């Protein structure tokens, strides 16, 4: 184990912030969705890194649950994006202003 824990944590912090930037700045709903996946991956990496360095398998089990929830989220989310596209002919989140008051 020659790579320190902080190296893994820094990498996953960087990936998480990339996801935050993607969600905050992009307007294509699909790319926003991919940025969310990027953030989930960053958190999973943190879980596995801590699991290795604390010698506890619990972190890996949590990754399993995160992946299950992410799969459910992607299935429902992509179905919502498809339904929106059928109704509005766009996936640009700036044009989806029905809830804007």
């Amino acid at each position, binding site marked *: *184990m*020659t*790579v*320190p*824990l*902080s190296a*893994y*944590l*820094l*990498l996953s*912090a*960087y*990936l998480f*912030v*990339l*996801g935050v*930037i*993607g969600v*905050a*700045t*992009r*307007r*294509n709903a*699909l*790319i926003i969705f*991919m*940025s969310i*996946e*990027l953030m989930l*991956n960053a958190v*999973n990496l943190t879980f*596995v890194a801590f*699991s*290795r*360095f*604390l*010698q506890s*398998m*619990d972190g*890996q*089990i949590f*990754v*399993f*649950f995160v*992946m*299950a929830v*992410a*799969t*459910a989220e*992607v*299935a*429902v989310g*992509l*179905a*919502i*994006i*498809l*339904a929106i596209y059928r*109704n509005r002919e766009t996936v640009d989140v*700036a044009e989806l202003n029905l809830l804007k008051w």
Partner: protein
Amino acid sequence: MDILVLEPILFAGLAAVAAVSGLLVIVQRHAVYAALFLIITMGSVAGLYVLLEAHFVWAVQVLVYAGAIMVLFLFVIMLLNLPREDVPWAPRDIRRIVLAASLSVVLLIELALVIGLRTAPAKEPALSVGFGTTEMVGRLLFTKFLFPFEITSIILLVAIVGAMVLAQKHFR
């Protein structure tokens, strides 16, 4: 060569690939390229799981994330057949983008400071036999985490039904 010698090199390579392709995900004009770079990012994260002795998580990452989820993404991109965006970021909301990006950089600096302040656990932790194997994960899933595991199946069922209802033709 010993794996201990190779480990920092492998980590540096995989981390660099993950960092660069992660950045490319959010600057692409076309969603297909973003999806392909996301697959590369997930692949290198899977490689890091191997370095961290999480073999089961590696397999699930490749099968579920890089496989199933990204195929779903690519199917939806294909179905929508979106035109290429003129610019990834519209010039008219440049102020909002600068604000969001600078706030994100502040977040990154905060995270780095927090990580730097913590002392890492003692180096070279000896691992128990079978750490990270499918057998150990399965044992934990069916003993300590049995209830959350069963809840997961309900979440997946709800997701299946929800996706079917939402994606059908006459959903208005």
